[in-house]
């Protein structure tokens, strides 16, 4: 069994690679800069005695995606889309460069590569696709609606893909991690009770993938927090500073 991790350099990806390797999966690490992946590759091989390999992958170089997937020596049984870019909301409000980077990394790039993977899985009637989306995508808030809207698009994409591929025997899982202690969130003060460690996210994903869950909230109460946030009437919501 092989798992492909798209965006392998992040804290969450490191934890995911280890959890799947501990389950004796071979691991394919994909990221823009493969020179940083060498250490991770050795680490997985030595700790877990599995095969690991590194592959150059650029989420926003859409044209390269079919060739990237074609070049994989073994087609993965599970593909996990981990890459993402929080970006700078304020900067993105005026800088198209920043705004488009947020949109293209979190949405367009994900759609581009998963279209390729989905075509292969659909034809072979097997495989699992896991997308790491975000609760930020459930309702746009002034503090991060660029990131949030891109993740909203991604969540809707995954939901549609799940619907379509179900009929081909392919499973698609959406992950809503909530707050996670990673390098991406290091500058933020997060409420400890609502915040997960990358290792918690990773082990929840391994379990949920085995159980073929559709939508995974890593900490269960996030589902209800977001439910409440979604049901605040718009005329009130627009006045809040969220």
């Amino acid at each position, binding site marked *: 069994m092989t798992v492909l991790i798209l965006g392998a*350099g992040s*804290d969450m990806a*490191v934890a995911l690679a280890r959890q799947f390797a501990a389950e004796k999966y071979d691991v394919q690490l994909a990221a823009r800069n493969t020179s*940083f992946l060498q*250490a*991770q590759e*050795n*680490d997985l091989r*030595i*700790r877990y005695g599995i095969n690991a390999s590194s592959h150059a992958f650029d989420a926003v170089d859409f044209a390269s995606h079919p060739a990237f997937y074609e070049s994989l020596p073994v087609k993965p049984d599970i593909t996990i889309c981990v890459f993402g870019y929080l970006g700078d909301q304020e900067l993105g409000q005026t800088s198209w460069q920043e705004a488009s980077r947020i949109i293209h990394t979190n949405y367009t790039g994900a759609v581009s590569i998963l279209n390729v993977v989905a075509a292969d899985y659909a034809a072979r009637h097997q495989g699992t696709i896991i997308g790491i989306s975000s609760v930020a995508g459930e309702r746009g808030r002034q503090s991060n609606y660029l990131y949030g809207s891109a993740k909203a698009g991604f969540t809707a994409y995954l939901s549609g893909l799940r619907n379509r591929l179900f009929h081909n025997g392919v499973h698609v899982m959406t992950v809503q991690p909530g707050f996670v202690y990673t*390098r991406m969130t*290091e*500058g*933020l*003060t997060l409420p400890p009770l609502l915040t997960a460690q990358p290792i918690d996210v990773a082990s929840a994903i391994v379990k949920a993938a085995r159980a073929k869950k559709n939508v995974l909230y890593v900490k269960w109460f996030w589902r209800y927090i977001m439910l409440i946030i979604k049901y605040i009437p718009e005329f009130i919501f627009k006045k809040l500073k969220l």
Partner: protein
Amino acid sequence: MQKRLANWGNYPVVASEESTFSREDQLQDLLHTQTPLIARGNGRCYGDASLGAHSISTLKYDKVLSFDIEKGLFECQAGVTLDQILDIIVPKGWFLPVTPGTKFITVGGAVASDVHGKNHHVDGAFSNQVVSMDVITSQGLITCSPDQEPDLYWATCGGMGLTGIITRVLFRLKKVETSYIKQKQIKARNLDEVIRLFEENKHYTYSVAWIDCLQKGDSFGRSILILGEHAAKAELSPQQAQAPLQLPSKKKLTIPFNLPSFVLNTFTVKAFNWLYYAKNTKREINNVVSYEPFFYPLDAFLHWNRGYGKAGFVQYQFVLPMDQKQGLVEILQRISSKGLGSFLAVLKVFGQQDNLISFPMEGYTLALDFPVRKGLFEFLDELDALVLQYGGRLYLSKDARMKQEVFWQSYPHVQRFAGIVKQYNRNNRFRSLQSDRLLLTAQPSELIMNNEELMIREAVVK
């Protein structure tokens, strides 16, 4: 992220900015900031050595880089912990060449503290087994070893992170046939007897004694000497022999919150020590046990440090030269008559070692825990004077309160160490509360300013 940080003794507690990195370029970015930094691993040193205004956690820099199963060479990034290494190497027939009493420390910390184990008199300290390492100094990344950049190498082993941030370490492992230890426990009626037993058994690879330091009169220094060797396959029970390199099970107990400090008083400690001593009904016990209870008896209790209450504790560890046994007696007597209640008293022998700044030197080393309370620090200052008088010194990894003059008088090569630190630590880029307190990175005048920062910890001592 701003955090309240404390090391294992829960004393002192400081407000600190903490950053992480998982790649070298990310670390280089962090080093471009102007604030002074100090590397921090798993927070298992006891005092303030890895605490500062801005700490850099190495825990995410935790990749295993190579493991030569033939030659027994292990290479990893600084944030890998010893428990992770054991999980990898033991099933392949290798063991850590030197291990302290907890496996929850990082490799970077093992080097920065130049940790020792129960086998120091045979195998030396951790630095003895290091082949080479990378250190990011104020001059950039430098690879060093005993032959390459030896100044940097020797100032980094035991140098408490003051030469820079250790990022990669290559070290030798020890070949074992099994994951078991052939153990011998001998009861000693008093201090004289345990010291005699140490001398009689110095051929053993591992030796340590647990002393009940509250005993008086004839049984002053009553103790249990624990000796060990890695067991050969032929020495295992039939059941053990089925899987000679099996890893111990991972079940753990935990103390979920700080116990009120009255839980540990003279009475309870006496009772504990008595039970510990009395459980060995025979004078000598021989058995074959897994490496876990032999090397890491306290690791079975996660957060055992919480047993000392919210005010925390300090562990006082000193070494005295071999011929200063009366010093050992005098210090133990002071502790015994003061009755400040030491939960643990551990006695070990050090073999010859004369590194630049490492703690070990040939002699006896004793470690005791003291819950932080009024009057304790004055008492420890008195003990410091005795340690100095007998030509000994204190372990920086346990230290949270030593006065700078004690440090400068007791470490013979400290001037040279300070000179090398200056060279690789320009403008005091790397500094901790400890290095400031010991005047390695601060001027006396600066300490006044620093006292403001120390307020958090003083506030706890009431």
